[in-house]
Every structure is written in structure tokens, then in C-alpha cells.
């Protein structure tokens, strides 16, 4: 559901209903296209020159909002948080960010569906990153905001959703993935996510699909439980750059008892990790909070 709103007033009733029905809503404008590109260039410079990297993995590109002021500001943007509040309530933590480049010629990302963000460790029982301690009174307790910092149309490898699939489990994320990908159609960062299908007869490619084409500077909000993936980048020379910022209600325990992450053939310590309170209050105190990033830049609180 495209939106033309430029305000900071959250979501309309129709947009809320669209999310409830489909599991995603957007795209929404955030930055002008040129400003988005300029902002990402600035973020790249900050990341490369950072003296306070949260970890030193070049494979696991998580959480650079913790040492990159431009991204620290981004995850707390009022335009984003206002819409999150409409979906998940007044109290919101940003718990993770990921960078998703898709280079010319890169394959699409296979269909997947998650809720606990269990780490994909080869052939081992995945360790959940999130533990939900209570049922949410709102439409969601976990949301991802995916911002396009470059054009993300079909040819660049835009995000795709299977509308309405957030209402049911089609994959079991608690099972280990054992096989490396054989067909690019199922590629989930080197693993075959289709291995986790609950019903072998269910074919995601035969479901109604929504291709979320976006311009640079737009963002979309979705529940990670909504089955999603992305198309291949078929352009000869245009990299698609998406930045995912992930949010939970403070009742959710983040990395509870998890001290290290082992993914994509690399491993990092989570000693650096903390959540950012982007709106409201944290009455639960389950999670360590960062009031400022690792450079000392204070996180602005949107609400």
C-alpha cells in the first residue's frame, strides 16, 4: 500500500488494517533520493573510519548503528518511530540492524519467515535471539524497518512479500539448516531455507506475491513472520542497498543468555550489544540499553 503521507502522525486506519491483513505496510517517504544516497555515502565513510567498531567481522555486518552516527540518527527517526508506535505501542527498542547490499548479478534471497531470529549455524540447533515473555496487546511485538538507500525496483532485487503469511507458520525456524543451497531460488545466505518448510506440499511460488518496489529514501515496515524474500539483481552495474533496523517491545528479551554469535562462517562476541530505547519507557529492564553510541553520540529519543 503506497503512501503519500509526509507527516509524523503514524498510520491511518486503512494502513493499520492493511498491515493487520498483510503483515507489511509501505513504502513511506523518509529522505529525498539524492539525500538518501548522500546519507549512505556518509555512513560508509563513518563505518570504514570508525575507531569504535562494535566488532571486527567483515562478514557479519550487524549493528553499525552503534558506531556510525548517521545510522544512530537514522534508527531513531521520528518519521519511522511514529509509524512503529501505531503498530507496536508506545515503548520501543531498536535491537539490531543489518546491511543488505545486493550487487549486480547477485541471486535473490529465498523465501523465509522468522520470529526469534535464531542464528543460522550449520547443522546445529539454532539459538533464538529473541524471547517473547508476554502476548502483545498491539498488532506486533517485533517489526523490521527496511530502508532503501538506493533504488530498489524489481531489476535491483526488491523485497517481496507473501501477503497474509504472518498469520501462520510455514517454516520452522527452530530446526537446523544442514544443506547448502542447491537452487538460487531458495538461497538464504548460502543455506537452503526451504528445508525448514513445515508442509512439503506448500509451494511459496504458487502464492500471491507482492513486489515492494521502492525509491531511494523510502522505507517499508514488516513483521518478520510475514514470508519474505527478494528478487535477483539483474542490473549490470547498480548495487541495491537496503538497511534493516529491527525493533521490539521492551517485554522481549534480546540475546538472553547468548554471549556470542556464529553466523556466515564467522563469530563475534556480543559484549558490545545493547538495545536503544527509541520511544517511551522500558519498565521491564530485561535488556541492557545504550543511551549513547560507542562514539559517545547520544541517541535521540523520538517520543
Amino acid at each position: 500500500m503506497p503512501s503519500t503521507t509526509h507527516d509524523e502522525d503514524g498510520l491511518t486506519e486503512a494502513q493499520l488494517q492493511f498491515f493487520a491483513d498483510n503483515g507489511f505496510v509501505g513504502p513511506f517517504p523518509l529522505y529525498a533520493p539524492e539525500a538518501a544516497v548522500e546519507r549512505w555515502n556518509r555512513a560508509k565513510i563513518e563505518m570504514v573510519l570508525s575507531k569504535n567498531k562494535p566488532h571486527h567481522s567483515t562478514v557479519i555486518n550487524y549493528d553499525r548503528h552503534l558506531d556510525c552516527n548517521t545510522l544512530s540518527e537514522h534508527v531513531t527517526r521520528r518519521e519511522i518511530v511514529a509509524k512503529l508506535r501505531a503498530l507496536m505501542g508506545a515503548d520501543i527498542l531498536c535491537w539490531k540492524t543489518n546491511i543488505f547490499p545486493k550487487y549486480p548479478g547477485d541471486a535473490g534471497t529465498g523465501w523465509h519467515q522468522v520470529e526469534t531470529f535464531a542464528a543460522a549455524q550449520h547443522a546445529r540447533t539454532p539459538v533464538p535471539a529473541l524471547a517473547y515473555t508476554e502476548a502483545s496487546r498491539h498488532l506486533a511485538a517485533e517489526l523490521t524497518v527496511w530502508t532503501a538507500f538506493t533504488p530498489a525496483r524489481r531489476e535491483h532485487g526488491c523485497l517481496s512479500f507473501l501477503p497474509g503469511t504472518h498469520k501462520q507458520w510455514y517454516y520452522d525456524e527452530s530446526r537446523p539448516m544442514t544443506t547448502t543451497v542447491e537452487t538460487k531460488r531458495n538461497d538464504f545466505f548460502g543455506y537452503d531455507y526451504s528445508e525448514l518448510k513445515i508442509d512439503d506440499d506448500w509451494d511459496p511460488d504458487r502464492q500471491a506475491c507482492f513486489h515492494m518496489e521502492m525509491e531511494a529514501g523510502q522505507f517499508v515496515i514488516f513483521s518478520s513472520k510475514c514470508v519474505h524474500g527478494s528478487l535477483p539483481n539483474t542490473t549490470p552495474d547498480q548495487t541495491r542497498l537496503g538497511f534493516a533496523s529491527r525493533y521490539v517491545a521492551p517485554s522481549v528479551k534480546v540475546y538472553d543468555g547468548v554471549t556470542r554469535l556464529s553466523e556466515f562462517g564467522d563469530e563475534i562476541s556480543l559484549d558490545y550489544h545493547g538495545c536503544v530505547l527509541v520511544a517511551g519507557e522500558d519498565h521491564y529492564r530485561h535488556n541492557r540499553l545504550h543511551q549513547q553510541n560507542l562514539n559517545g553520540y547520544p541517541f535521540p529519543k523520538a517520543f
Partner: protein
Amino acid sequence: MVDAEGIQELCRFINAQDHLANVRLEDLEGASRREQLGITSLGVIMLVANYMEAHGVSHAGFNPDWVNKLDSIEGIISVFRDIRRDNAATP
């Protein structure tokens, strides 16, 4: 137009970097994009940052607009030229 002096300067500077593999001048002359030399998008930013440092230009002066030019060899050479000009303009 080929900037022979710029290519030589780039070759010399790449080969002085610990984070980049050495390149031969003829390879550089035959390349149009940094990927052909195995230089990543992050590696080229570090290259430019180091060039700024070598010319006494603060990293704070790293112009985000430069990043768009850094995919091509010609663009990198033009950014190096800008840095030398900035350095020359500094009193």
C-alpha cells in the same frame, strides 16, 4: 583522456597500502573499474582516507560526494586530484 601521471600516482599509492594487494601499472592502465583490481567499496574508502592523511587533509574533509566516483579508476584519480588541491589550498 588518460591521466598518465594520475595512474602512476594511484599505482604507487595502492602498492603502499597494507590492506590492498599490489597492482602492476599495466593492469591499472587496462582497468576501468576498481573491482577489476580486487578493490572493494570499503577498501577504496580506506585508500582515499589514507591518501588524505598522507597529504595532511583531515578525514573530516572526506566529501560524501566522492563516494559515487570511487567505482571507476578515473573517479579515484579525480578524487586524489581534489585532495591534492585541498592540501595545496590549506594555508
